[in-house]
């Protein structure tokens, strides 16, 4: 640092020491302390080529593509699904008509757990949190009139991901679309299910085997498909800090890489099809720093630790969703604004696709109007704000670069701890990430209650007697009844001997080492239901139960 800057800084420090400051903690939403001012001093060790490089170039801190949004904007992909397959099909067509560029399927809880709509545990849950899909027949109706060779589809499905993916592949087959042209993503990230989202089927170890089978099947047969979307979103929603989201998500990613290598796959054969999914939380700068740090960590670890040689294996491509947990039920229209800057952070952080939450999501599933405003928010950012002109405009910012470094260091400290515990699967088994997250969630709640953190409309600027008057989406209980009737008819109509035969083949594959995807596809073609196929998994591998600890 030059003498001129040094003396200037000293003078400023003396002046500012006499200034009055507001009595609040100056820190990020994650509790990372933030200095008042950053100077060249904060990035004096930065090496431009080693630490940042150019877009599309190792270590990809500045973005994964050479031209970023000048070539193509991010995919505007609104996560949606509710009621029956027909209800959701209509919403998809509506969104496509209004300029959405990719589909993203939200399944209801029974589907997420591999249960049919008429399973006793499904009672009251059918079509509530997403769309109910119990068989190939439902999937065919979900995509009726939507050409699967033209759209890319992301499916938030984990425990039974292999099964729903098979439903999709066969639906495409019936449209005359072969699997080699299909584009999309299955979330298929089971590790974070045990950490945060909690929709699992079977215990971690057999789950990882099924995951590896999907990876292997995809790289051979569905080459344009992302076979895992390694997700920090749910980890963050469960209450983690930004650094924890970054660290646990990447640790999960490395877990899959290690599992693939252990199963005898070549890292460069599958790593290019791994993608990520992050949250965009309320702290604008911290989020941008998180995405930049994530890209750099992944690139370095993939190259140096896992010896990937194909540059595509080094690329961390990611989807982003704005943070549902930051939205408030109070004065819900304010959420439009929260979502706007969270979306902006994702874009400035170089996301490949984006979902913007609707203002009414703390109250119900989004209404059509609320969903359209959320989509428009992305279009406004894309076409009016001007932020897509330069690539990675925050590079070189004393603050942003040092925050990127800070998050990166924290992530490496977590990697060390996880390694000491015997790797991510072991760490999950002893509840380490779960405890860290529960602790952070409690800390956050306390800080809000002690008013160390102001949430507009909740603990400050409250409107007494407020009654939000926004129309909410209601799911008709008839959806569940109709769905049960359809399943009953399906079971009568199909060739049940054929169903049994295909399920027997799947059982054999589960017990042996053959790839489970092939028998699942056969069972799908015979219209075996989700619950029947998942039932084979549970029968062979057992069901997972979490120890009920709240810490």
């Amino acid at each position, binding site marked *: 640092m030059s003498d001129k800057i040094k003396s200037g800084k000293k003078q400023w420090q003396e002046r500012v020491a006499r200034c009055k400051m507001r009595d609040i903690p100056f820190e990020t939403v994650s509790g990372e302390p933030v200095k008042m001012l950053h100077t060249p001093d904060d990035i004096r060790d930065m090496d431009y080529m080693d630490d940042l490089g150019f877009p599309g170039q190792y270590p990809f801190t500045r973005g994964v593509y050479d031209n970023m949004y000048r070539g193509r904007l991010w995919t505007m992909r609104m996560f949606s699904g509710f009621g029956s397959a027909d209800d959701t099909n209509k919403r998809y067509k509506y969104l496509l008509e209004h300029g959405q560029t990719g589909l993203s399927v939200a399944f209801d809880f029974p589907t997420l757990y591999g*249960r049919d709509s008429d399973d006793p545990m499904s009672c009251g*849950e059918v079509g509530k949190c997403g769309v109910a899909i119990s068989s190939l027949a439902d999937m065919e109706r979900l995509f009726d009139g939507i050409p699967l060779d033209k759209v890319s589809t992301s499916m938030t499905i984990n425990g039974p991901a292999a099964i729903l993916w098979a439903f999709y592949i066969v639906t495409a087959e019936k449209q005359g679309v072969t699997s080699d042209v299909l584009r999309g993503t299955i979330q298929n990230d089971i590790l974070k299910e045990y950490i945060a989202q909690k*929709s699992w089927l079977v215990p971690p170890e057999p789950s990882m085997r099924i995951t590896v089978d999907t990876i292997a099947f995809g790289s051979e047969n569905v080459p344009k498909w992302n076979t895992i979307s390694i997700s920090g979103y749910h980890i963050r929603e469960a209450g983690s800090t930004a650094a924890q989201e970054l660290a646990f998500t990447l640790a999960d990613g490395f877990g899959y890489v290690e599992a693939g290598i252990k199963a005898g796959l070549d890292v460069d054969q599958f790593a290019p099809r791994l993608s990520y999914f992050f949250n965009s939380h309320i702290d604008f700068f911290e989020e941008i720093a998180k995405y930049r740090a994530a890209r750099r960590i992944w690139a370095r670890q993939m190259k140096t630790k896992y010896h990937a040689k194909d540059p595509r294996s080094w690329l961390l491509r990611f989807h982003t969703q704005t943070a549902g947990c930051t939205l*408030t039920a109070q004065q819900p229209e304010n959420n439009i604004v929260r979502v706007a800057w969270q979306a902006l952070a994702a874009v400035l952080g170089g996301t490949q696709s984006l979902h913007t939450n609707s203002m009414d999501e703390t109250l119900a*599933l989004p209404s059509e109007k609320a969903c359209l405003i959320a989509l428009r928010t992305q279009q406004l950012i894309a076409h009016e704000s001007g932020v897509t002109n330069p690539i990675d405009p925050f590079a070189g910012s004393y603050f942003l670069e040092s925050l990127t470094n800070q998050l990166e260091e924290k992530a490496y400290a977590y990697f060390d701890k996880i390694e000491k515990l015997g790797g991510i699967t072991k760490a999950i088994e002893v509840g380490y990430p779960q405890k860290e997250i529960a602790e952070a969630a409690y800390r956050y709640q306390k800080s809000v209650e002690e008013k160390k953190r102001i*949430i507009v409309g909740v603990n400050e600027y409250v409107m007494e007697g407020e*009654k939000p008057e926004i129309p909410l989406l209601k799911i008709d209980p008839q959806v569940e009844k109709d769905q049960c009737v359809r399943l009953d008819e399906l079971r009568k109509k199909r060739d049940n001997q054929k169903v049994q035969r295909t399920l027997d083949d799947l059982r054999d594959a589960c017990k042996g080492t053959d790839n489970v995807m092939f028998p699942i596809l056969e069972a799908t073609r015979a219209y075996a239901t989700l619950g029947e196929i998942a039932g084979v998994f549970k029968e062979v591998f057992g069901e997972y139960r979490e120890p009920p600890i709240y810490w």
Partner: protein
Amino acid sequence: MSKKLRILIAKPGLDGHDRGAKVVARALRDAGMEVIYTGLHQTPEMVVEAALQEDVDGVGLSILSGAHMTLFPKVWDLMKEEGIGDRLLFGGGIIPREDVETLNKMGVGKIFGPGTTTHEIVDYVQSTVPGDDR
């Protein structure tokens, strides 16, 4: 000295959102209550069985999946059938106002929505649960 209040915090149905349930369980514990947490994916029968086994003074259900109009009435009916209809049943989650009103009319206690402080919940449980007088 009065005996510690015993509260069961339960996650019925398939809902996996357990952040709120865990925070509330911990806040009640920090306020001096005995808290039993069921963990995820409980049937109404399992919840009521646990309430009986643990002889709790109150049951708090956390439901964010939209299945509240099925699960609250089921748990409440079972509690009455099992002779513990004198205990408090309360809850929280993503539950529209009209549904809260319907549930209150059935005899279900307060249902807390997003933005509630843990103090409100602690105060409510302490002032509503019969505890020793039962």
